[in-house]
């Protein structure tokens, strides 16, 4: 279950129900339902599953994860667990 991939929000169709947006995936785009992430803005990335945005990509966390990949050698001394994210906002 769970084929879901990150896509970039290009334009949001304001005022529709459910809330829809054009989201691009490496150059192709598709209409995606944004109803569960109403605070997402154009230019941000969302994870899309069967035409629905299920989560917003937290870019800071994404970079933090990548940074940890680089530091894998230091793993044994430090803690592998990524730090807790920022306080959750409603709807995310």
């Amino acid at each position, binding site marked *: *279950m*769970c*084929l*879901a*991939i*990150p896509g*970039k929000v290009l334009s949001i169709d304001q005022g529709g*129900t*459910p809330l829809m947006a054009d989201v691009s*995936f*490496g150059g192709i785009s598709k209409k995606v*339902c944004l*109803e*569960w*992430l*109403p605070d997402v803005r154009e230019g941000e*990335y969302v*994870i899309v*599953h*069967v*035409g*629905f945005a*299920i*989560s917003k*990509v*937290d*870019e800071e*966390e*994404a970079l*933090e*994860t*990548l940074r*940890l*990949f*680089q530091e*894998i*050698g230091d*793993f*044994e001394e430090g803690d*592998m*667990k*990524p730090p807790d*994210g920022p306080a*959750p906002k*409603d*709807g*995310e």
Partner: protein
Amino acid sequence: MRFVDEYRDKDSAARFADLLQRITTRPWTIMEICGGQTHTIVKYGIESLLPPAITLVHGPGCPVCVTPLEMIDKAIAIASQPDVILTSFGDMLRVPGSQKDLLTVKAEMGNVRMVYSPLDALKIAQENPKKRVVFFGVGFETTAPANAMAVWQARRMGVKNFSLLCSHVLVPPAMEAILSSPSNHVQGFLAAGHVCAIMGYEEYIPLASRYAIPIVVTGFEPLDLLQGIAMTVKQLEEGRHEVENQYTRAVRKEGNVRARRLLQEVFTVSDRAWRGIGIIPSSGFELREEYAAFDAARVFEVGTIAAQESPLCIAGQILQGWKKPYDCSAFGHQCTPEHPLGAPMVSSEGSCAAYYHYRRRQGTPAATP
């Protein structure tokens, strides 16, 4: 592709492989319970990067594989009615029912259509007012809200010819069923990242505690899997059993609150039969009474269907991680993707299909770097 390619980096993968060699001192058995993760593991040959002491087991994480035979037979019976258009995700079309699969019905009658999203199915219903359009809604908690939305929209817009044939299953009860079994030898779990993107991971905390087992919420790219495995092994080596989140860029502890609210509005939790495993209490979703008019199971009278499984198929044992596909006497002989005996050989991330396509024979090249 951004947020995809970076998580497929070769050098980082090699570093993880090194790390795992160093920190693993004992044999550990880790289960992932998501078809998408099975797919990645097999497709990228991740097992060949792990030290031999780590055994990865694939759980019943493929909703296609665990959809009960009766449900598929029901979908086929519904699709066989001339005024019906049955819409479905691609995954379900090749899974065998007692007699045939939906692809065969498509070939015979032409009224089965593949869609990408449940909203496409709703659109087909609006465009074909004289037909009864049924959406075969399978999936775990990741897909349930999308299916819920289709039904919710249908009700709101009065699309009376649309209904949902619902076959939803939930992950935590399945994990509990596996952990509480006397035959269980799973020592750590990778939790399905996208399920948790919806549901959050609070419900795993009591499980981790009760069964003293580490659970790491993990993503789907190869580096996510490697990091998730490394975090699990580290906990096991240190004797910890906590819930940790590897997939921090997409998963928050409380999940997606709006999606969860929609789930509660449209669905109610019910007992569900899992193909090959049996009934797991409170492990599925059913449409609420207010949505009865959109419940295909109630709308269509298809009578009792006596479903018959192949006696050779050991899917249940494979789905619970007790056996590997090549332990099955029919694997590669009577049971192949061309004529599958059970669901795991058909679904593209079913264990048996994955082993058949990507490894073929036990001990083949997956072990060679």
